[in-house]
Protein backbone atom coordinates (compact mmCIF):
# COMPACT_ATOMS: atom_id res chain seq x y z
CA UNK A 1 0.00 0.00 0.00
CA UNK A 2 1.23 3.51 -0.83
CA UNK A 3 0.49 6.82 0.86
CA UNK A 4 0.76 10.28 -0.67
CA UNK A 5 0.54 13.07 1.85
CA UNK A 6 0.72 16.83 1.33
CA UNK A 7 -1.05 20.16 1.78
CA UNK A 8 -3.93 21.63 -0.18
CA UNK A 9 -3.17 21.84 -3.96
CA UNK A 10 0.32 20.43 -3.51
CA UNK A 11 0.27 17.98 -6.44
CA UNK A 12 -0.87 14.78 -4.70
CA UNK A 13 -3.48 13.76 -7.28
CA UNK A 14 -1.23 14.41 -10.24
CA UNK A 15 1.39 12.13 -8.73
CA UNK A 16 -1.21 9.41 -8.04
CA UNK A 17 -2.36 9.62 -11.67
CA UNK A 18 1.25 9.17 -12.80
CA UNK A 19 1.61 6.11 -10.59
CA UNK A 20 -1.72 4.58 -11.58
CA UNK A 21 -3.09 6.01 -14.85
CA UNK A 22 -5.83 3.38 -14.90
CA UNK A 23 -6.68 3.43 -11.24
CA UNK A 24 -10.18 3.45 -9.80
CA UNK A 25 -10.81 6.56 -7.66
CA UNK A 26 -12.86 6.26 -4.51
CA UNK A 27 -13.14 9.99 -3.88
CA UNK A 28 -15.09 11.88 -1.23
CA UNK A 29 -14.87 14.94 -3.51
CA UNK A 30 -17.02 13.03 -6.02
CA UNK A 31 -19.60 12.22 -3.37
CA UNK A 32 -18.37 8.67 -2.77
CA UNK A 33 -18.52 7.05 0.64
CA UNK A 34 -16.04 4.72 2.23
CA UNK A 35 -18.87 2.20 2.46
CA UNK A 36 -19.09 2.21 -1.37
CA UNK A 37 -15.98 0.07 -1.22
CA UNK A 38 -15.33 -2.68 -2.15
CA UNK A 39 -18.49 -3.12 -4.22
CA UNK A 40 -17.65 -0.22 -6.54
CA UNK A 41 -14.07 -1.34 -7.04
CA UNK A 42 -14.81 -4.86 -8.14
CA UNK A 43 -13.03 -4.23 -11.46
CA UNK A 44 -9.42 -5.45 -11.24
CA UNK A 45 -7.56 -2.16 -11.14
CA UNK A 46 -5.47 -0.19 -8.66
CA UNK A 47 -7.58 1.60 -6.07
CA UNK A 48 -6.92 5.25 -5.10
CA UNK A 49 -8.73 6.56 -2.04
CA UNK A 50 -8.94 10.29 -1.30
CA UNK A 51 -10.97 12.83 0.63
CA UNK A 52 -10.54 11.27 4.06
CA UNK A 53 -10.97 14.60 5.85
CA UNK A 54 -14.47 14.84 4.36
CA UNK A 55 -15.39 11.39 5.67
CA UNK A 56 -13.94 12.22 9.07
CA UNK A 57 -15.90 15.48 9.10
CA UNK A 58 -19.10 13.54 8.38
CA UNK A 59 -18.29 11.16 11.24
CA UNK A 60 -18.02 14.14 13.57
CA UNK A 61 -21.62 15.20 13.02
CA UNK A 62 -23.57 14.57 16.21
CA UNK A 63 -21.94 12.68 19.08
CA UNK A 64 -18.55 11.12 18.54
CA UNK A 65 -15.71 9.43 20.35
CA UNK A 66 -12.37 10.31 18.77
CA UNK A 67 -10.52 7.30 20.18
CA UNK A 68 -13.17 4.95 18.88
CA UNK A 69 -13.15 6.65 15.48
CA UNK A 70 -9.38 6.33 15.28
CA UNK A 71 -9.71 2.59 15.92
CA UNK A 72 -12.43 2.28 13.28
CA UNK A 73 -10.28 4.00 10.65
CA UNK A 74 -7.26 1.90 11.62
CA UNK A 75 -9.38 -1.24 11.22
CA UNK A 76 -10.47 0.00 7.82
CA UNK A 77 -6.80 0.38 6.84
CA UNK A 78 -6.17 -3.22 7.88
CA UNK A 79 -9.05 -4.30 5.66
CA UNK A 80 -7.52 -2.46 2.68
CA UNK A 81 -4.16 -4.04 3.34
CA UNK A 82 -5.70 -7.51 3.39
CA UNK A 83 -7.66 -6.74 0.23
CA UNK A 84 -4.52 -5.55 -1.54
CA UNK A 85 -2.67 -8.73 -0.66
CA UNK A 86 -5.57 -10.94 -1.69
CA UNK A 87 -6.39 -9.11 -4.94
CA UNK A 88 -2.80 -8.35 -6.01
CA UNK A 89 -4.06 -4.88 -6.98
CA UNK A 90 -2.22 -1.93 -5.44
CA UNK A 91 -3.98 0.53 -3.15
CA UNK A 92 -2.90 4.15 -2.92
CA UNK A 93 -4.12 6.43 -0.14
CA UNK A 94 -4.07 10.22 -0.52
CA UNK A 95 -4.15 12.25 2.67
CA UNK A 96 -4.36 16.00 3.15
CA UNK A 97 -1.88 17.54 5.59
CA UNK A 98 -3.94 19.89 7.80
CA UNK A 99 -1.95 19.87 11.03
CA UNK A 100 0.32 22.87 10.62
CA UNK A 101 -1.98 25.80 11.36
CA UNK A 102 -3.06 27.40 14.62
CA UNK A 103 -5.24 25.36 16.97
CA UNK A 104 -8.88 25.93 15.92
CA UNK A 105 -11.36 27.40 18.39
CA UNK A 106 -14.07 24.87 17.54
CA UNK A 107 -13.82 21.46 19.21
CA UNK A 108 -14.97 19.64 16.06
CA UNK A 109 -12.24 21.27 14.01
CA UNK A 110 -9.69 20.21 16.62
CA UNK A 111 -11.08 16.66 16.54
CA UNK A 112 -10.85 16.68 12.74
CA UNK A 113 -7.17 17.64 12.87
CA UNK A 114 -6.49 15.03 15.56
CA UNK A 115 -8.18 12.24 13.65
CA UNK A 116 -6.61 13.20 10.34
CA UNK A 117 -3.16 13.28 11.98
CA UNK A 118 -3.66 9.90 13.66
CA UNK A 119 -5.00 8.46 10.43
CA UNK A 120 -1.85 9.70 8.65
CA UNK A 121 0.35 8.01 11.23
CA UNK A 122 -1.64 4.78 11.15
CA UNK A 123 -1.65 4.77 7.34
CA UNK A 124 2.08 5.51 7.08
CA UNK A 125 2.80 2.66 9.49
CA UNK A 126 0.90 0.22 7.27
CA UNK A 127 2.23 1.51 3.93
CA UNK A 128 5.56 0.37 2.56
CA UNK A 129 6.01 3.59 0.60
CA UNK A 130 5.10 7.12 1.70
CA UNK A 131 5.49 10.21 -0.48
CA UNK A 132 5.37 13.87 0.50
CA UNK A 133 3.98 16.35 -2.05
CA UNK A 134 5.11 19.97 -1.72
CA UNK A 135 4.30 22.72 -4.20
CA UNK A 136 4.05 20.33 -7.14
CA UNK A 137 7.16 18.32 -6.29
CA UNK A 138 7.14 14.87 -4.69
CA UNK A 139 9.74 12.96 -2.70
CA UNK A 140 9.68 9.63 -0.87
CA UNK A 141 9.78 9.89 2.93
CA UNK A 142 9.43 6.15 3.56
CA UNK A 143 10.75 3.53 1.16
CA UNK A 144 10.65 -0.23 0.87
CA UNK A 145 13.39 -1.89 2.93
Amino acid sequence: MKLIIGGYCSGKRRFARQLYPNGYWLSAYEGKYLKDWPTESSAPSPLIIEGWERWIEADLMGNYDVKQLRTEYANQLDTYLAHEQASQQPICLILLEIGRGIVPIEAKQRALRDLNGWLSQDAAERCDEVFYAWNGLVRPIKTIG
Partner: protein
Amino acid sequence: MLTFISGGVRSGKSRLAEQLAEQDAETRGGALFYLATAATPQESEMQARIRWHQQDRGKAWITLEEPIDLNAVLPRLQANSTLLLDCLTLWSSQVMFASDFSPKEAIEELDAFIQALTDQQIHLIIVSNDINECLPPNTPELLNYVRFLQCLHQCLTAQADHVIQMLGGCAYDWKGG
Protein backbone atom coordinates in the same frame (compact mmCIF):
# COMPACT_ATOMS: atom_id res chain seq x y z
CA MET B 1 18.60 31.50 -13.12
CA LEU B 2 15.56 31.15 -10.85
CA THR B 3 15.64 30.16 -7.18
CA PHE B 4 12.44 29.50 -5.21
CA ILE B 5 12.45 29.37 -1.40
CA SER B 6 9.37 28.62 0.69
CA GLY B 7 8.45 27.40 4.16
CA GLY B 8 6.57 28.38 7.29
CA VAL B 9 6.65 31.64 9.22
CA ARG B 10 10.10 32.41 10.72
CA SER B 11 11.66 29.32 9.23
CA GLY B 12 14.72 31.21 8.00
CA LYS B 13 13.61 31.84 4.40
CA SER B 14 14.59 35.51 4.13
CA ARG B 15 17.93 35.07 5.85
CA LEU B 16 18.94 32.24 3.50
CA ALA B 17 17.63 34.15 0.47
CA GLU B 18 19.74 37.19 1.40
CA GLN B 19 22.84 35.03 1.91
CA LEU B 20 22.36 33.33 -1.46
CA ALA B 21 21.76 36.68 -3.18
CA GLU B 22 24.87 38.27 -1.64
CA GLN B 23 27.04 35.27 -2.59
CA ASP B 24 25.69 35.30 -6.13
CA ALA B 25 26.28 39.04 -6.57
CA GLU B 26 29.80 38.72 -5.23
CA THR B 27 30.65 35.76 -7.47
CA ARG B 28 29.26 37.37 -10.60
CA GLY B 29 30.27 40.94 -9.72
CA GLY B 30 26.78 42.30 -10.40
CA ALA B 31 24.49 44.67 -8.53
CA LEU B 32 22.27 43.47 -5.71
CA PHE B 33 18.59 44.41 -5.84
CA TYR B 34 15.88 43.88 -3.28
CA LEU B 35 12.30 44.00 -4.50
CA ALA B 36 10.00 44.67 -1.57
CA THR B 37 6.42 43.73 -2.41
CA ALA B 38 4.83 45.26 0.70
CA ALA B 39 2.47 48.13 -0.05
CA THR B 40 3.39 51.20 2.03
CA PRO B 41 1.88 50.34 5.41
CA GLN B 42 -0.14 52.70 7.60
CA GLU B 43 0.73 51.02 10.90
CA SER B 44 3.88 52.25 12.68
CA GLU B 45 4.65 48.66 13.73
CA MET B 46 4.83 47.58 10.05
CA GLN B 47 6.88 50.66 9.14
CA ALA B 48 9.36 49.80 11.91
CA ARG B 49 9.48 46.19 10.71
CA ILE B 50 10.43 47.38 7.20
CA ARG B 51 13.15 49.64 8.63
CA TRP B 52 14.66 46.71 10.57
CA HIS B 53 14.74 44.64 7.38
CA GLN B 54 16.44 47.47 5.48
CA GLN B 55 19.05 47.96 8.23
CA ASP B 56 19.69 44.21 8.42
CA ARG B 57 20.36 44.03 4.72
CA GLY B 58 23.17 46.60 4.78
CA LYS B 59 24.27 49.14 2.21
CA ALA B 60 25.15 46.84 -0.66
CA TRP B 61 21.49 46.43 -1.52
CA ILE B 62 19.46 48.64 -3.84
CA THR B 63 15.87 48.53 -2.61
CA LEU B 64 12.96 48.74 -5.02
CA GLU B 65 9.33 48.74 -3.96
CA GLU B 66 6.45 47.47 -6.06
CA PRO B 67 3.31 45.92 -4.56
CA ILE B 68 1.60 44.77 -7.79
CA ASP B 69 3.09 45.61 -11.20
CA LEU B 70 6.36 43.64 -11.14
CA ASN B 71 7.26 44.52 -14.72
CA ALA B 72 7.31 48.23 -13.79
CA VAL B 73 10.67 47.75 -12.04
CA LEU B 74 12.38 46.26 -15.12
CA PRO B 75 13.82 49.59 -16.40
CA ARG B 76 15.57 50.10 -13.04
CA LEU B 77 17.42 46.76 -13.08
CA GLN B 78 20.84 45.98 -14.54
CA ALA B 79 21.92 42.99 -16.62
CA ASN B 80 23.86 40.24 -14.77
CA SER B 81 22.57 41.43 -11.42
CA THR B 82 20.83 39.56 -8.61
CA LEU B 83 17.26 40.31 -7.58
CA LEU B 84 15.59 39.10 -4.41
CA LEU B 85 11.78 39.25 -4.42
CA ASP B 86 10.47 39.06 -0.86
CA CYS B 87 7.79 37.97 -0.72
CA LEU B 88 5.50 36.35 -3.25
CA THR B 89 2.76 35.80 -0.67
CA LEU B 90 2.27 39.53 -0.14
CA TRP B 91 2.38 40.21 -3.87
CA SER B 92 -0.19 37.49 -4.56
CA SER B 93 -2.56 38.78 -1.86
CA GLN B 94 -2.33 42.33 -3.21
CA VAL B 95 -2.93 41.08 -6.74
CA MET B 96 -5.91 39.04 -5.60
CA PHE B 97 -7.56 41.54 -3.25
CA ALA B 98 -6.30 44.99 -4.32
CA SER B 99 -5.80 44.95 -8.09
CA ASP B 100 -7.70 44.49 -11.34
CA PHE B 101 -5.58 41.50 -12.38
CA SER B 102 -7.35 38.18 -12.78
CA PRO B 103 -5.38 35.17 -11.48
CA LYS B 104 -4.63 34.21 -15.10
CA GLU B 105 -3.32 37.70 -15.91
CA ALA B 106 -1.23 37.69 -12.74
CA ILE B 107 0.41 34.40 -13.75
CA GLU B 108 1.13 35.87 -17.20
CA GLU B 109 2.58 38.97 -15.52
CA LEU B 110 4.88 36.84 -13.39
CA ASP B 111 5.89 34.69 -16.39
CA ALA B 112 6.73 37.79 -18.44
CA PHE B 113 8.75 39.18 -15.54
CA ILE B 114 10.75 35.94 -15.19
CA GLN B 115 11.38 35.81 -18.93
CA ALA B 116 12.60 39.43 -19.01
CA LEU B 117 15.02 38.72 -16.16
CA THR B 118 16.26 35.53 -17.82
CA ASP B 119 16.95 37.50 -21.01
CA GLN B 120 19.17 39.87 -19.01
CA GLN B 121 20.91 37.09 -17.04
CA ILE B 122 19.45 38.39 -13.81
CA HIS B 123 19.33 35.78 -11.06
CA LEU B 124 15.87 35.97 -9.51
CA ILE B 125 15.40 34.62 -5.99
CA ILE B 126 11.77 34.40 -4.86
CA VAL B 127 10.70 33.94 -1.26
CA SER B 128 7.21 32.72 -0.43
CA ASN B 129 5.21 31.16 2.41
CA ASP B 130 3.59 27.76 2.71
CA ILE B 131 0.04 28.31 3.95
CA ASN B 132 -1.54 25.11 2.61
CA GLU B 133 -0.66 22.58 5.29
CA CYS B 134 -3.35 23.62 7.74
CA LEU B 135 -7.15 23.28 7.64
CA PRO B 136 -8.28 24.82 4.33
CA PRO B 137 -10.08 28.16 4.86
CA ASN B 138 -13.86 27.96 5.03
CA THR B 139 -14.67 31.00 2.87
CA PRO B 140 -14.63 30.77 -0.95
CA GLU B 141 -12.51 33.94 -1.26
CA LEU B 142 -9.74 32.65 0.97
CA LEU B 143 -9.89 29.17 -0.54
CA ASN B 144 -9.49 30.76 -3.99
CA TYR B 145 -6.52 32.70 -2.69
CA VAL B 146 -4.77 29.56 -1.37
CA ARG B 147 -5.50 27.86 -4.70
CA PHE B 148 -4.03 30.83 -6.59
CA LEU B 149 -0.89 30.92 -4.43
CA GLN B 150 -0.43 27.15 -4.83
CA CYS B 151 -0.79 27.55 -8.58
CA LEU B 152 1.98 30.17 -8.54
CA HIS B 153 4.15 27.93 -6.37
CA GLN B 154 3.69 24.96 -8.69
CA CYS B 155 4.50 27.08 -11.77
CA LEU B 156 7.66 28.31 -10.06
CA THR B 157 8.91 24.97 -8.74
CA ALA B 158 8.40 23.47 -12.22
CA GLN B 159 10.71 26.00 -13.88
CA ALA B 160 13.11 26.96 -11.07
CA ASP B 161 16.73 25.80 -11.18
CA HIS B 162 16.98 25.68 -7.41
CA VAL B 163 14.04 24.91 -5.09
CA ILE B 164 14.46 25.06 -1.33
CA GLN B 165 12.09 24.24 1.52
CA MET B 166 12.95 25.80 4.89
CA LEU B 167 12.13 24.14 8.19
CA GLY B 168 13.50 25.44 11.51
CA GLY B 169 16.32 27.31 9.78
CA CYS B 170 17.41 24.19 7.88
CA ALA B 171 17.27 24.07 4.10
CA TYR B 172 16.10 21.07 2.08
CA ASP B 173 17.00 21.16 -1.62
CA TRP B 174 14.13 19.78 -3.70
CA LYS B 175 15.87 20.72 -6.94
CA GLY B 176 19.38 21.92 -7.74
CA GLY B 177 21.65 23.31 -5.04
